[in-house]
């Protein structure tokens, strides 16, 4: 019996907990992508770098706070710096919209033009971020490291395997839960949220009903920026901040959004967890896990790792392609917010 418990703890510790934390970060990013797609109808390639930009401002503010000795230990200082990051990301999105995207929107350019324009924005933004903070890895986390330490867990349960939950992981999940709940409440209950859903569902009819398109677009950018800054900060606290990594997050983020049906917020969240858990699940070496469950004579020789961790990226992608081929609309029927 303890073998089974040990195996479960092992799986929790190395697959489920990191997967859920990563999934939460992806969910926030994917929600932003899906929201912009639902309202503005294009895939925003600059989204990953908006995450980096917001996180960078959080990092700078955190340093400033740390320099002044302001903190909220045991929680990371970055949490109180977060509003600055959100404001910066929002300011950036609105500026980009004003200078770049609005022009094409008013001319009713095809979405692919907006997509290519977003590549231009991405270029410029990558330059800005690197110009300000450089391309290197930076640490964002301070304060306590763990909610549960492996050694404490072992002592408490008497199991051989320990379960460690990092503070950053718990925090990520909590913050994501709050953000997602707030977003859904907003979309389902508020007048502005309903207007956004209506606009995403049927633009002409929404205009006919008196929905102000500029207002809806404004909300979409603001929410996407908020989610991006939060996602980036959470990812930074959990792992570290490196501009290029954030650009690379674009792929799993898009995968999550498309997987769930792009434009579909619930889908984005579900898609994010599927992507994250498959990434951790497929790259985990199951040797030890199987040793607990199988009779000794069956003990596997190799690591029983389906793919090396380097192929994480490939997994989200393979899932994406399979889903697109089997069900082009995504798991939930996409294209609209609901």
């Amino acid at each position: 019996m303890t073998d089974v418990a040990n195996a479960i703890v092992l799986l929790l510790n190395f697959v489920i907990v990191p997967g859920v934390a990563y999934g939460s970060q992806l969910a926030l990013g994917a929600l932003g992508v899906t929201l912009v797609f639902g309202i503005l109808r294009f895939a925003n390639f600059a989204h990953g770098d908006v995450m980096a930009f917001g996180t960078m401002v959080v990092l700078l503010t955190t340093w400033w706070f740390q320099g002044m000795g302001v903190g909220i230990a045991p929680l990371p200082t970055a949490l109180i710096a977060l509003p600055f990051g959100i404001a910066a990301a929002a300011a950036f999105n609105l500026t980009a919209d004003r200078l770049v995207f609005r022009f094409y929107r008013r001319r009713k350019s095809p979405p692919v033009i907006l997509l290519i324009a977003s590549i231009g924005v991405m270029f410029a933004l990558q330059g800005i971020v690197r110009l300000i903070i450089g391309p290197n890895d930076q640490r964002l986390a301070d304060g306590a490291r763990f909610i549960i330490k492996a050694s404490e867990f072992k002592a408490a349960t008497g199991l051989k395997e320990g379960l460690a939950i990092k503070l950053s992981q718990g925090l990520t999940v909590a913050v994501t839960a709050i953000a997602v709940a707030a977003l859904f409440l907003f979309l389902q209950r508020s007048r502005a949220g309903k207007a956004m859903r209506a606009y995403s569902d049927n633009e002409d009819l929404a205009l006919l009903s008196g929905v102000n398109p500029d207002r809806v677009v404004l909300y979409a950018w603001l929410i996407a920026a908020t989610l991006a800054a939060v996602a980036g900060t959470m990812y930074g606290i959990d792992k570290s901040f490196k501009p290029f990594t954030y650009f690379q997050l674009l792929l799993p983020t898009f995968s999550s959004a498309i997987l769930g049906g792009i434009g579909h917020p619930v889908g984005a969240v579900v898609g994010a967890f599927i992507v994250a858990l498959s990434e951790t699940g497929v790259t985990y070496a199951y040797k030890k896990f199987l040793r607990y469950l199988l009779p000794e004579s069956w003990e596997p020789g190799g690591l029983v790792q389906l793919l090396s961790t380097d192929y994480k990226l490939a997994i989200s992608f393979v899932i994406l392609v399979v889903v697109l081929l089997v069900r082009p609309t995504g798991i939930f029927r996409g294209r609209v917010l609901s």
Partner: protein
Amino acid sequence: MIRVENLHLHFGGIRAVDGVSLEIEQGSITGLIGPNGAGKTTLFNVIAGVYPPSEGRVFLQDEDITGLGPHQLFHRGVLRTAHEFSSLTVAENLTTVPAGQAGEELLNAWFRRGRVRAQEAEIRARAADVIHFLGLDEVAGERAGALSGGQKKLLELGRTMMAEPRIVFLDEVGAGVNRTLLRSIGDAILRLNRERGYTFCMIEHDIDFISRLCQPVIVMALARRGQVRPAGDRLLPGARPQTRRRPIMSFLIGDGMTGGYGDADIIRNCTIEAEQGEIAVIVGPNGAGKSTAMKAVFGMVMLRAGAVLLDGEDITRLSPQERVRKGMGFVPQERNVFTTMSVQENLEMGAYIRAGDIADPMARVFDLFPILKERRRQIAGELSGGQRQQVAIGRALMTEPRVLMLDEPTAGVSPVVMDDLFDRILEIRATGIAILMVEQNAAQALSIADRGYVLVTGENRHTDTGAALLADPEVRRSFLGG
């Protein structure tokens, strides 16, 4: 030549084509007519390979061509006309068409220029002939996207000639085309049929046009083929337009409206009026500008001349949203509900523009459409066609408008649902609202109309009370199919 056996096409739960069987004789010009939503265009698309059918077979001569793609059918001589290549010139639109061009294979294009050039010269010469035949010489070098609607139709025929097909499927080649051009299109079709032996199958709404060209005519009922009816003798042309001025100002007046979407005017000096507590109906053949006239009243069309007055106030320059605030409600023909939102949310969105309490109007809508109250938490996309239409009307009523405008509210619904919808519209009239609607089912619509407008090519042709129009033998013959 083409034999269709028991063809079905289902999209999700919708039966777009439901068990159609028909045969197209070699050398014939077969006409396909029927109400909107009968699935004529979809049927064309299935036969032409755009969608594979859910069930049933299609034969060309005796070859089973079910499930072949459009390009494969093209090479078997089956042509479905399509939109022009708007960024290519008129000449290029034609030279692209012929099959078996050596220069379309890269190796030839690279290394066998002589052969490619010779063939290209031949194709260009043919294209020049076609351009001349259609009288498009002046625009041969223009981008096809810049052509007028009528010229695009001619180009469509031109591409047909370049393809040298055995059978051509024409989808509403006459829609939105003026009489003169329509005549020359008809002439061209007849010549191609007689001189080159092309078989034609065409969807058309203009009864005159159909009866002049087509033999036989197949009438499609809702999503199913009806009876085959040979066209009778040529029907009489309509009388000259008549307009008359009313001494008293109506509640809603679209006066002498002229305008359209691009450069071409779709409606010309068109006048539409509606009075409170009355139903006004606009009928006429497809492409007559019925919807455009209504949209012009609602401010969705640029007007070059004319005015729109609501309760004596000039609203010509107001945007549609502002007109909603002034008390106009509009139900578009398609995509008229938010399919991913609940019934109740749809109604809430209807009242989005007005501040304050919406319980009262919502209660009234629920009184009018009790089924919506029952289903208020259901997602609108899951409702049946008739219920959806009720949501759409309910949505427009949420602003408590003084004028309700309906664009073909019964398109694609079954006769039972249609009767029910007409009953509801009568109930709405009883509340004292002015109702203006465009209808394809002209006879039924005129039977409940207090006044009717027959539009032809964007102009008023007949205007009278619904009953009088129904009784008018000329209107009956030309527009009500006998």
